[in-house]
C-alpha cells in the first residue's frame, strides 16, 4: 500500500514539474502557449492520432490518481482504527504542519483538481470575458485576470507545495533510499527544492497575469 502510494506520488512529482515548465510558456505570449498546447497533442503524431499521446498520458494519470487516493484512504482508515480511544491530553508531537496536513491537504488538492479540470480541460466553468475554448493562451489569461481565481490557485499551490515537501521526503523513506546521513540530507534538500520550484513556478503565471505583466497581445 505504502509502495503504491510512493510510486504513484513519484509519477505526480514528474508530471507537476512538466506541467509547471509548460505553464511558463505563457511568458512567451499567447502564440507560444498555443503552439505548446498544440505540440502536446501532436507528440508521436504519425504513429498516434491527434491528441493520442495526451490521452494515453491522461489515462496513466487517472490510474495513478486512483492508486494514490485509494492507498491514502486505506492507510487513513487503518490509522483511525489503530487508536479508537483518543488521548485526553496529547501534545501535538513536534510534527511539522506539512506532515500533519498530508491527508486533509490531499483532500483539498483533490477538490482543487476537480475545479481545475472543469475550468481548463473540460471547459465547463468559464470565468473572464475571453474564456473561450479556441485558444488555450487566451483562456488562461482571461481566467487569471479575475482576482478570486488567482486566490484559489495561490491557496492550492501552497497546499501542493506542502504536500510535495513532506511527500517527496516520505516517498524516499518508503522506497528505502535514505539509509545514510548523506542520502537523508539529499532527500530532504530534494524535497524542499522540488516543493519550492513547483509552487513558485506554478504561481508566477497567474500573478503575472493578474498584475498585468502578461497581457496576452
Amino acid at each position, binding site marked *: *500500500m*505504502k*509502495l503504491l502510494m510512493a510510486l504513484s506520488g513519484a509519477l505526480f512529482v514528474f508530471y507537476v514539474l512538466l506541467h509547471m515548465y509548460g505553464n511558463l510558456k505563457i511568458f512567451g505570449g499567447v502564440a507560444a502557449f498555443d503552439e505548446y498546447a498544440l505540440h502536446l497533442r501532436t507528440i508521436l503524431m504519425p504513429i498516434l492520432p491527434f491528441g493520442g499521446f495526451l490521452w494515453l498520458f491522461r489515462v496513466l494519470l487517472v490510474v495513478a490518481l486512483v492508486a494514490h487516493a485509494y492507498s491514502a484512504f486505506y*492507510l487513513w482508515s*487503518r*490509522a483511525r*482504527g*489503530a*487508536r*479508537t*480511544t*483518543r*488521548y*485526553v*491530553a*496529547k*501534545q501535538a*508531537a*513536534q*510534527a511539522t504542519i506539512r*506532515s*500533519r496536513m*498530508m491527508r486533509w491537504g490531499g483532500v483539498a488538492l483533490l477538490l482543487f483538481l476537480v475545479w481545475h479540470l472543469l475550468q481548463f480541460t473540460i471547459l465547463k466553468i468559464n470565468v473572464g470575458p475571453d474564456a473561450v475554448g479556441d485558444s488555450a493562451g487566451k483562456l488562461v489569461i482571461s481566467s487569471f485576470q479575475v482576482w478570486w481565481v488567482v486566490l484559489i490557485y495561490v491557496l492550492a499551490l501552497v497546499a501542493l507545495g506542502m504536500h510535495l515537501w*513532506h511527500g517527496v*521526503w*516520505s516517498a524516499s*523513506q*518508503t*522506497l*528505502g*533510499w*535514505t*539509509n545514510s546521513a548523506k542520502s*537523508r540530507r539529499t532527500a530532504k534538500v530534494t524535497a524542499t527544492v522540488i516543493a519550492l520550484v513547483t509552487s513558485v513556478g506554478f504561481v508566477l503565471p497567474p500573478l503575472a497575469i493578474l498584475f498585468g505583466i502578461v497581457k496576452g497581445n
Partner: protein
Amino acid sequence: MNLTLKIWRQAGPQAKGEMVTYPVSDISEDMSFLEMLDVLNEQLNARGEEPIAFDSDCREGICGMCGLMISGKAHGPEVTTTCQLHMRSFSDGDEITIEPWRADAFPVIKDLVVDRSSFDRIIQAGGFISANTGSAPEAHSVPVPKPKADRAFMAAACIGCGACVAACPNASGMLFMGAKITHLGELPQGQPERDARVVSMVSQHDHEGFGGCTNVGACSSACPKEIPLDVINQLNKDLRGALMRGE
C-alpha cells in the same frame, strides 16, 4: 512540591474508564515519577481505596516495562523512561495528566496497564535468528565490521516499551519493528532469515491492528533510547528487496 494529578482509572479491560483528579503534596523533587505514584498509592491504600495499577520492573530504564503518557508526552518531558523521569522536571503546582498508551493493539488491562503482547507476537513472527544451541561459538570466527556492529548495537538498544506506538499519530509500530530488523539485518547471523523476517514481521504488525507509517518522526523523538527514524527506512528497504525477490 504539591501537584494535581489527573489519572485514567479503568477497573478492567471491558470497563468504562474515566479521568480522576488526585492532589498530592510534599513530593520531593528527587523522587522518580513512579515513586511519586507509589506515594499516592500508599495514601489510597490507607484510605481503603483501590490503588492505581501501573507497570514497572527494573526502574533503571533498561527493561521497557514502564510507560505512561504524561501530559500528552510518552514517558513525559525528558528523553528517558518513566521510571528514570524525576520530579525535578516538574514545578510546584503543576497539573499532570497521566494516561495509558493508547493503541488498539495495546488494549488497557487496568488503569494505566496495557497489554503489549502484540509486540511479542511480532517478535515471534520473525524477530529472531535460528541457531543451534550448545557451547558458545568462538567469538572471532564470524567477523563483523565495526560500523555494522555499531549500528546493530544502536538498534538493539530498543527496549520495546511501546512509546513509539503511543506517540505516533497513526499508532504505528514501525520504529520498534525497524529497530529489530536493523539490529539483526546488520549482523552476519541475521542474514539467512532476513527476507522472510521482514515480510512476516510486517504482516504480523498489520494483522495486530497497528497503523501505517507516514514518516512524521514523532516515534523517534519520543523514544527513550533515541532510535533514529532511519531504521524505518532500513525496514522499507529490506521489505522492497524481499518482495522483489518473491518472498
